[in-house]
Every structure is written in C-alpha cells, then in structure tokens.
C-alpha cells in the first residue's frame, strides 16, 4: 500500500489516507467532517480557528484534492485510525494526534474509520475495562419509560470498582444497544468510505500510562456477535494542580460565583464532557465558592467570573505553574435591587428530568441545585418536581424552605475518582433559599398547560398513587392546590399561544397546540389561578393573553421564570435567566421569608424580566403596585412616577450578542439602534400610550408620565423584552375594570377554541365537569363583554 501510494505521488500524505480519499465523494465526506468538528466544539475542545477556516475553504472546493488536504489536516487531531476490511476483520492503528491526556480531565480526539466496503453496522470503541461510573441513565428499554436508576454495576460497594479505572473512553453521539445483556454505547456506521467520530478520554491519574483500546463491529443479526481488534496506546497524562479559589462579592464578603475557564486553545476547563455533579455537562461554567478549588494543568487561562445579571462579567488571564496556584475573583455589581427591597427569585427550576441530565446524572440533589442558584445570585429558587424524575425527586419535597450546604452529592465517587476538591460554606449562603414544589408536566392534564404549584404542603393528589391517575384537566388540580394554601399558575405561558401578529394587543386566536397558558383563560374565571409565567418566550405571545385577561378585570400576576435547564439557550444555561423581583421589608430567609416572598408575588409587589432592567420605584399618584387600588371619583389625569435602571454594554461582545439571539427576553432586543438607550413604555389597558428613551448605563433614573384615565384601568411600565411591572389598578367611579369589549370577546373565543382542541384529551368521566367549567367561563366573558363600554 505504501509503494502504491508513493507511486501515485501523493506527497506528505499518509499513504493509507491517500488511498482511501481518492475514492470518496466530497459532499458526504465534508458533511461528516463538519459534524465531527462541531461535536468537538460543543464539547469545549474546538479545533484551531485557522484549521476550522481551512476546512471550510476545502469544503467549498469540494474535490478529491480538498479531501486529501482535509485528511492531512485532520490527522493531527486523530487518536486512532480504524479499518473495517472487506472480510469484516477490523484493525486499529495509531493516529497522528499527540496522545496527551490531563489528570482529572477529559480530552477529545477524532477517530477515523476507513470502511471501503460500506458496512452500516453498529460499532463501538472502548477501553478494555470500560464502565461508566457516576452515571445514571433512564431505566427500561422502552422510549416511554420515565423511571430512573443508577447505571453502575449491580454491586453494593462501588468504590473498588471505580478505583481500578484510570481511563474512561466514550464515543460521542452514541445510541445504546443490548449486547451480551449489557447496554453498549455504539455508533451506527454510515457506510461512507471514511468517516470521523469523536472520542472523549478521561484520565484519573498523571504520568505515563498505557491502555488498550478496542474497536468492535457488531453483527447485524446477532448483537452479541462481533468482530473486534485491540491495540495498546501510550499516553502522557499531564499533572493537574489543585488551584485554590478566592471568590469575593462586591461588598468584600466571600460568596459563590459562576466561573468559565478556558485554556489557550479555547478548551473549557474542567472539560464539559462527563462532568460529575455539581458541574454540569451542558454548562461551560462551574460554580465555586470562596476557598474551593478547580483542577488545572499548567498553562495560561482566561477566566470569566459573574453572578447573575446584576453583576458585570469580568475577564482575567492567569498563568498556572508551580509558583502560581491560586485564582482570585472580585465580583462587581452594577445594581443591587435588594437595597431597594427587591429580592429575586426563579419559580421554575428542575433538578431532574430534562434530557440534559442524562449525563452525568439523571437527577441532582438539593445540594447541587442550591449551588447553582447561589451562583446566580438568586434569593429564591423553586425546584419543581415533574413527570420525568417524579418518583425519584419527590423524596426531596419537605413542604419547607431549605438552604442546604452546597456539598458534593457523590463524595465517594469523587474520592474514588481522585477528585479532591472540598466544598466550603460562605457567609452569604443563607441569602439563598430553595423550595421544592411541583410542575404538572408529563401528567394527564399537561395538554391543558403546565401548572406551577408553589408552597404545597402535600404533593400527592388525593387517591392518585401514579402519575397516570391524576386528573386529565387542570382545574381540579388547581383547586386541590389552592385548598392547601398553594400559589398556583401557568408555566411558559407563550407556548402554543404564539400567533402571526406581534402587535400588542392583538386579537388573533392562538392554536393552543402546545403547553402554555391554555386552560388559564378558563381557570381565571373560577378564581383558581394566581399567575402566568414568562420571560422565556416571545414577549408578544406572553403578554397578549395577560393583557386581555387584565382588561376583563381579573387580577393575575406575570412572573419571570427560566424552566432551567429545559428552556435555556445553548450558550447560557443557568438558573435565573427569567426572574421575578418581589418587594419585601427584609431578605427572605426560611419558611417565613419564603411565605412572604410568594405572598407578595401574589399581591403583585413585583416586576419581572431578564434582570438587566429594574423598576426600583413605580407609583401612580404615589400609589405603588401590589397595594390597594387607586380610587378616583371621576376621569382625570394621573401622575406615573418611577425610578428605573438598566444595563447595556456600550460595545457588546460577539458572545453576548450570540446569547441574546437565543434569548427572547434580553435587553439587547430593546437597544435603540446602535445607542446605549432603551425605550421605557407606559402601558394603559394593554396599549403602550407613551414612551421615553433612557440611557442604560446602570444609573437609577427617575422618570415621570402624565396619563389621562377615562375609566377604571390598569397601568404598567415595561422595557420590552427586558422587564415589566405588575400593574397598578385605578378604580374610577367605583366601577370594575372593563377595558375592552374586544378583549372579552377574544377570551370568549379562546374558551371555544380550547374546548375544541383540549377536550378530546380529557377522560370521559371528567368531561362533564370540565364542560360545565368551560360553560361558566363562556358566561363570565359574555357578561363582561356586555359590561364593557369601549370596543
């Protein structure tokens, strides 16, 4: 083969590579290469920027020479070259990448598979003693299974098992098959003559190490039958140092913060692949407290530190070597709303169930959740148990607010894995409170919209032992929740309510074809719902239904939520992307603090948004929101006053703009042209009636409007896509708010549409009661329509 390649005159290129590349079509080859390169980048180990540009150029050329050049370039990233021969025998060779691993870290490589015969079986590439410690996976083989179990071998003492393993290998983008009774992660060969996949290798240890890597191709008909070949690889495992962290808040007190650490090659450290809780595979950042540590090999690092949207993101470059083993972070705030009495909370967080928890675990503990919530500077985090993970996570429900120490939830695994970082408490830990509650998602009623039930005392619906036995529509669940003092509302309200129009208000009837505030429009007429949740969907779709409901005279809060980590953008997975600010006399701590927070949320002493705009004061004729209505004897102008602060970077980084692109609520969307200004709008009965421009430089600024009020009305302020206040209600002449016939008609039409779309999903024996509840809503909206004077 060498002689043949030489005769063909393929210079510099490895002969085996040249021989194969001459026969491959460029389009499928580059499509596959591009995916492999994207996988490396997604895992925090991108190829060099220059090489990425070169691959893009070669892809555009799209000929055999381009394939040859790409092969040569990719050889430097390739750990192993595998050959699947015509007789189905397999062969493993060393690739051209430097076989350097990192103690306590993951390194990613390409694996090249030559498959000239075009086989399309499943293949696996693994260490000879492959196992997956510290990993949980969905139980059962059915796609419908929602149970969970630990993925470790069936043994009581797992530590000796783990202690023997110094190397883990994991192919990317695998699907499991049962082979010899075990679930084996495999890739499905495409049949291309050459294809690349990504392998991740974790070294627990440092120094020179040797391991045998094995390539297997499974038989089509019998998954237990395979052709395989193994080869020994020598690795140089770089020593990692335990780097002490100093993390101080803006007030000089120790705290917990979010740190994103990249090496000079742009690799995320600790690597995102296969992190063990509390570090998550879907986040580039890790959360660390003052006095804790990270493991890093010698080198130069770029460190970004922050603690939620009230802080400025800070960057520093640090060299790590024998004499530099410490990183100090001093956080900087641009605003502290707590000084005005506003305390932030995210009412929609999950500790399990989203696909993002498949690695490293299927669910995490309160000790992990509280670390993430503290690291984003939230005072309150509502951790909601939902369908996937329900039976496991319900153990953490106590009916009380908690603020646990942010300890490691798998200390034995960490120890066996030679991960020696110790957790540390900080003086600010008590400033963050968790409450475990429920989201009714993945339940029989979920077609009617997902409910968020806060401050539950009891989490099992009467008579229902299994999820499948819960009601198939929402009102009974809301009544049960309210009967125990819960505060209840609808999650991600825009989902299924988005229409073509982005006008506010608009009168298009949504399809109600998804999981937003569907039945809310009925339930509000029964006094059973306290809030809708937004800040994680298109603003117009979130606000339109809310405005129409308020125009009918109902009192309903809109709260900010994230639905972490289910609805987070790819580049900004964190709690508190959407958040509510609730006004209190003092910081909410313990049960009494949590009760005060949710009660004031229910009363409407709140604003919500992305945390980058703040309505620190808001009053109409000196009456603040969440207090008694302002009463006027007759129509007259009112004075609207507020103190508003907002933050926009003068020159936003490309990363910040990329994040904003994926977030519906992000102050970047409010930026006026290329200025640093945002519009502050006065909203009366759902219509923006006045607007002023404000510099978003973080300075709290007083603003004022004068607005004529002709009838009982609601008045709010907003910075579109960044923040919105709860309204102040104005009672004119003792009449209820009946702001718009068209709003009432919209609600009435939605009831009909909802019945058409949702009633088929209700159980037959519940449909009569549901029909009566819907009919009640129709009657209420008909009555309100008749009471409205204005169209």
């Amino acid at each position, binding site marked *: 083969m060498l002689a043949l390649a030489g005769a063909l005159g393929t210079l510099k290129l490895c002969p085996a590579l040249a021989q194969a590349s001459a026969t491959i079509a460029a389009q499928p080859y580059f499509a596959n290469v591009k995916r492999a390169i994207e996988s490396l980048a997604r895992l925090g180990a991108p190829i060099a920027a220059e090489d990425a540009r070169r691959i893009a150029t070669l892809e555009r050329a799209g000929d055999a020479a381009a394939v040859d050049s790409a092969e040569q370039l990719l050889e430097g990233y390739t750990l192993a070259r595998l050959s699947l021969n015509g007789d189905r025998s397999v062969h493993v060779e060393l690739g051209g990448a430097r076989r350097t691993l990192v103690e306590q870290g993951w390194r990613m490589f390409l694996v090249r598979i030559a498959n000239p015969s075009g086989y399309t079986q499943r293949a696996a590439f693994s260490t000879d003693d492959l196992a997956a410690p510290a990993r949980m996976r969905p139980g059962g083989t059915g796609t*419908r299974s929602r149970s969970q179990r630990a993925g470790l071998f069936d043994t009581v003492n797992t530590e000796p098992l783990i202690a023997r393993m110094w190397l883990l290998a994991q192919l990317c983008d695998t699907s499991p098959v049962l082979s010899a009774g075990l679930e084996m992660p495999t890739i499905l060969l495409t049949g291309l003559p050459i294809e690349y996949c990504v392998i991740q290798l974790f070294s627990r240890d440092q120094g020179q190490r040797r391991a045998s890597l094995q390539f297997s191709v499974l038989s089509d008909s019998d998954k237990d039958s395979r052709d395989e070949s193994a080869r020994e690889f020598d690795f140089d495992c770089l020593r990692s140092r335990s780097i002490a962290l100093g993390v101080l808040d803006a007030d000089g007190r120790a705290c917990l913060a979010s740190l994103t650490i990249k090496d000079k090659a742009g690799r995320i450290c600790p690597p995102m692949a296969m992190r063990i809780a509390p570090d998550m595979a*879907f986040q580039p950042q890790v959360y660390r407290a003052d006095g804790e540590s990270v493991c890093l090999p010698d080198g130069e690092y770029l460190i970004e530190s922050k603690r939620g949207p009230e802080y400025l993101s800070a960057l520093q470059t640090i060299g790590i070597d024998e004499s530099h083993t410490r990183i100090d972070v001093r956080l900087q705030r641009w605003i502290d709303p707590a000084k005005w009495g506003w305390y932030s909370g995210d009412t929609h967080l999950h500790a399990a169930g989203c696909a993002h928890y498949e690695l490293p675990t299927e669910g995490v503990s309160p000790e992990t959740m509280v670390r993430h919530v503290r690291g984003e500077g939230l005072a309150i985090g509502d951790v909601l148990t939902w369908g996937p993970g329900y039976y496991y996570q319900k153990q953490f429900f106590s009916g009380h607010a908690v603020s646990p120490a942010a300890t490691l939830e798998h200390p034995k695994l960490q120890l066996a894995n030679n991960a020696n970082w110790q957790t540390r408490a900080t003086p600010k830990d008590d400033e963050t409170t968790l409450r475990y509650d429920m989201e009714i*998602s993945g339940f029989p009623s979920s*077609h009617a919209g997902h409910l968020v039930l806060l401050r539950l005392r009891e989490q099992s619906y009467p008579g229902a032992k299994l999820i499948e036995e819960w009601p198939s529509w929402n009102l009974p669940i809301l009544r049960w929740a309210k009967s125990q003092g819960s505060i209840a509302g609808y999650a991600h309200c825009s989902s299924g309510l988005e229409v073509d129009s982005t006008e506010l208000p608009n009168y298009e009837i949504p*399809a*109600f074809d998804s*999981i937003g505030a569907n039945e809310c429009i009925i339930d509000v007429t029964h006094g059973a719902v306290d809030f809708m949740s937004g800040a994680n969907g298109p603003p117009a779709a979130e606000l339109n239904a809310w405005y129409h409901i308020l125009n009918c005279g109902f009192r309903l809060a809109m709260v900010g939520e994230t*639905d972490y980590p289910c*609805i987070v953008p790819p580049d900004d997975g964190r709690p508190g992307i959407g958040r509510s600010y609730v006004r209190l006399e003092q910081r909410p701590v313990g049960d009494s603090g949590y009760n005060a927070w949710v009660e004031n949320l229910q009363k409407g002493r709140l604003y919500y948004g992305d945390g980058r705009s703040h309505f620190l004061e808001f009053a109409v004729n000196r009456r603040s929101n969440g207090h008694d209505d302002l009463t006027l004897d007759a129509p007259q102008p009112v004075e609207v006053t507020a103190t508003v602060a907002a933050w926009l970077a003068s020159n936003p980084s490309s990363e910040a703009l990329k994040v904003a692109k994926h977030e519906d609520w992000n102050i970047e969307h409010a930026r006026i042209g290329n200025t640093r200004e945002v519009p502050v709008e006065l909203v009366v009965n759902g219509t923006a009636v006045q607007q002023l421009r404000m510099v978003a430089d973080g300075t709290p600024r007083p603003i004022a409007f004068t607005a004529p009020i002709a009838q009982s009305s609601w008045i709010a302020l907003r910075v579109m896509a960044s923040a919105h206040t709860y309204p102040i209600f104005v009672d004119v002449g003792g009449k209820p708010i009946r702001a718009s016939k068209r709003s009432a008609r919209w609600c009435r039409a939605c009831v009909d549409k909802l019945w058409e779309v949702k009633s088929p999903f209700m159980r037959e024996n519940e449909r009569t009661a549901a029909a009566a509840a819907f009919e009640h809503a129709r009657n209420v909206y008909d009555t309100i329509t008749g009471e409205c004077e204005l169209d």
Partner: protein
Amino acid sequence: MRWVSALALAIFKLAHAYAEDHDERHELQAGQRSESRAALIRIVINPETRISVSRVGQLPSTTSCGKPLILPVEIVNQGFVTAPLEASVVDGASEDISVEFPTQPLTGRDEERRILRVTLRKPGASDITVAFRARRGFPDLGGRDRIHLLLRCSP
C-alpha cells in the same frame, strides 16, 4: 369541428383526472403501506416539547434519482403537542435535494406515524441533515432534533 375538439378536450381532461386520481391513490396506498412498515426514524417529543430524533432502522442502500425515497417515521408525543411538525434540510439544502413532510398538525396522541419523503436528483452519495421542529416550539439544545442521512441515488 368544434364539437370534435370539445370531445377530445373532455376525453383528455377525463384521462388526465383519472391519471391524477390514480397517481394520488397509488401514492396514498404506497404511503399507507409505508406507514404500516417498521419505522426507520423515531421522533420523541418530550413533555416540555423538546424533540429528539433517532434512526431506528436501516436506510435503503440506494434509490432512483428524482424518485422520492419513502421513510416511515414514528412519532412518540409525550407533550400532547398538536402543532404541525416541520422538517427542513440543515445546511447543504440545494436543488439537488428536497424533503417533504406532512404539514397537517399532530393529533396529540401519544403515538402516530408520518412519512418523510426525500428526493435526490444528483447521482451519487449525499449526506443530508434533516431537522424537525414543532411549529413555534423550542429547538433542542443538544442538536438532538436532527438526523443525518447518508443516501445514494442512481439515474
């Protein structure tokens, strides 16, 4: 002569209508047969409406250029989603490749079948990525809402 022309036109229209109807019925029957075949692609819509796609069967080794390749799709709908499920070619979409997927809304039932039709026009191998998304739904964060298909066609 006019009535002869009119008759000829009527016969032509009838024949054309029959042919169209026949094609349509044939297509429908083929579709129904395909729907009842084992799915090659499985789409799971989780309770939060996130979509993940996986290949669950062997793709045909080759097809005729210009003729739609019929790929049965199984949809597991855990989110009661009744929005249309849309399919689109990611990157590399060109006149050489087209994808058709039914645009009618999902039923919301926990399982249903659809047919994905892929037409290749350029002879040889093509590697295409098809992304699925419930209309106005949330895209998946981990790229699980897309599937890669290596298909070949010959003239």
